[in-house]
């Protein structure tokens, strides 16, 4: 069988091939890379980006963008830590409402979902471009986080909560389990439900999707809601890992997330891409970050390299579209 660079199998697996080559390259230069400790560490680190990126994938599949995920992560994480540690106080009613770990997690997810729904509402109701609407939310959510935390970390959240970010189950880190569950849910949503097909349809051709009777606004609302909730899950993982909610948590995470989506082969113009591709994209970014640290590359150069990788991914995506 004659396999060339233009072979469909090669095109379909280009992210995977890139990941393989990257791992090979780093392992040749650093003997610490291919150790189990390091690889688990990489997986643990990328689990946050995986959670955010699978939500972002749905948005990008719909030809949208969500720049607010980092800030939504920060606010959800802060509220999660805040209610867990301080509860809610109602002075006039002489009432203290305490939150269990489950309660704090659910609260964070609800906050994330509410912010995402708000994004979706603004985008659909006022026909504001997603870039602008979510950029506004980026600033609003970050400001609210600073107001809520007063710029001070909320720490000491207890061993039960810490377990989520630092614990192991069946020899696998808990964050990896959580991100895996999130991925499986979104893979199921995109591949096995009409909701998933609608997302692809809207991204492929919004007008055609509308004319075929798809309730575009409802789907958009739901997708932005899911993206917000996924960001909140990422926030819970970050906070539990550090056992502390940092006011600047999630700063510029949206960029890593968009990078993972693009590197994973999802087209920024919508309609094309997979969640599994995004996971590979997130792993590539994680491996790249880890490799550059192991190879003692200056942090400034790390940013340059990451930028070049994203640029290459977009160029390849454009070339693929042209060839089609």
């Amino acid at each position, binding site marked *: 069988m004659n396999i060339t660079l233009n072979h469909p199998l090669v095109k379909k697996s280009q992210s995977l091939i890139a990941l393989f080559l990257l791992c090979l390259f780093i392992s040749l230069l650093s003997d610490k890379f291919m150790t189990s400790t390091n690889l688990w560490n990489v997986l643990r680190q990328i689990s946050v980006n995986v959670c955010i990126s699978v939500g972002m994938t749905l948005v990008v599949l719909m030809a949208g963008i969500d720049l607010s995920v980092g800030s939504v992560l920060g606010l959800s994480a802060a509220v999660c830590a805040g209610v867990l*540690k301080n509860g809610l106080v109602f002075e006039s009613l*002489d009432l*203290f*409402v*305490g939150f269990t770990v*489950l309660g704090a997690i*659910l609260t964070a997810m609800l906050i994330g979902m509410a912010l995402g729904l708000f994004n979706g509402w603004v985008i659909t109701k006022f026909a504001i471009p997603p870039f602008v609407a979510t950029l506004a939310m980026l600033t609003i959510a970050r400001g609210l986080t600073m107001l809520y935390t007063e*710029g001070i*970390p909320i720490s000491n959240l207890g061993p039960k909560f810490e377990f989520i970010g630092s614990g192991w189950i069946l020899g696998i880190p808990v964050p990896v389990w959580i991100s895996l569950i999130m991925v499986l849910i979104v893979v199921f949503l995109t591949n096995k439900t009409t909701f998933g097909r609608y997302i692809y349809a809207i991204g492929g051709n919004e007008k055609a999707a509308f004319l075929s009777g798809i309730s575009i606004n409802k789907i958009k609302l739901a997708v932005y809601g899911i993206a917000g909730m996924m960001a909140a899950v990422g926030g819970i993982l970050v906070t539990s890992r550090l056992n502390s909610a940092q006011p600047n948590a999630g700063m510029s995470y949206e960029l890593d997330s968009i990078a993972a989506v693009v590197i994973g082969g999802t087209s920024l113009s919508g309609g094309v891409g997979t969640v599994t591709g995004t996971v590979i994209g997130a792993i590539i970014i994680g491996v790249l970050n880890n490799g550059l640290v192991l190879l003692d590359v200056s942090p400034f150069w790390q940013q340059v390299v990451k930028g070049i990788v994203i640029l290459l991914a977009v160029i390849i995506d454009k070339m693929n579209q042209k060839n089609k």
Partner: protein
Amino acid sequence: MKKRYAYILGLLIVLTLGYNSVYFKKLSVVKAATKENFDFKAYADSIYYKGILKSKKITLGDLTSLMQSNPETTFEKYGNRLGIGNSAYFMIQSTGKIIDITDGLYTIADEKNGIVYIDTKYIFGNAIRDASGLVKLTDFKTNAQFNKVSESLNDIIRNDVIPKEISKVKLGDSISFSGAIKLSKKQNLREKITVIPSQIKLQ
């Protein structure tokens, strides 16, 4: 019929999650329990008398010249801050002559630093606690408790230190003083600095 079962199941899930998510207590009981566990006054006394009074402080003159030459290192070495941002609290000491007293605000002509204000009326916020660098957020269960330390430290300054020490000084006196100031990395050092005092002594 199928929908009805789905709603009932959904409601049951929500109720179960809700029941396992929150718990309710009387606020007065929670407050009482917190108070019983920790004596903020004794803690603040120990921080002030054993820590703040005895700690070595940078002189205001040295701090301002270091700020001009190398603000990053100065912030790291002498500044204390809890969160992020470009501002930090510093515990400083200096000397000067009282040239004006207006509504609790003492204007000091500092030989090296020009005019410095000492605020003896509005002792609020976290300046003393944070500038001391002795109180860690992680030592407290809640942010409210952490803030309570500031209240207790401010009480010491407001009720004990200032009335006792300020009664001995008058306009024209030369004094030595120490206290907390807040500076930002891009601080215009020509602007007047206001000190929240931790000690004022007649020279």
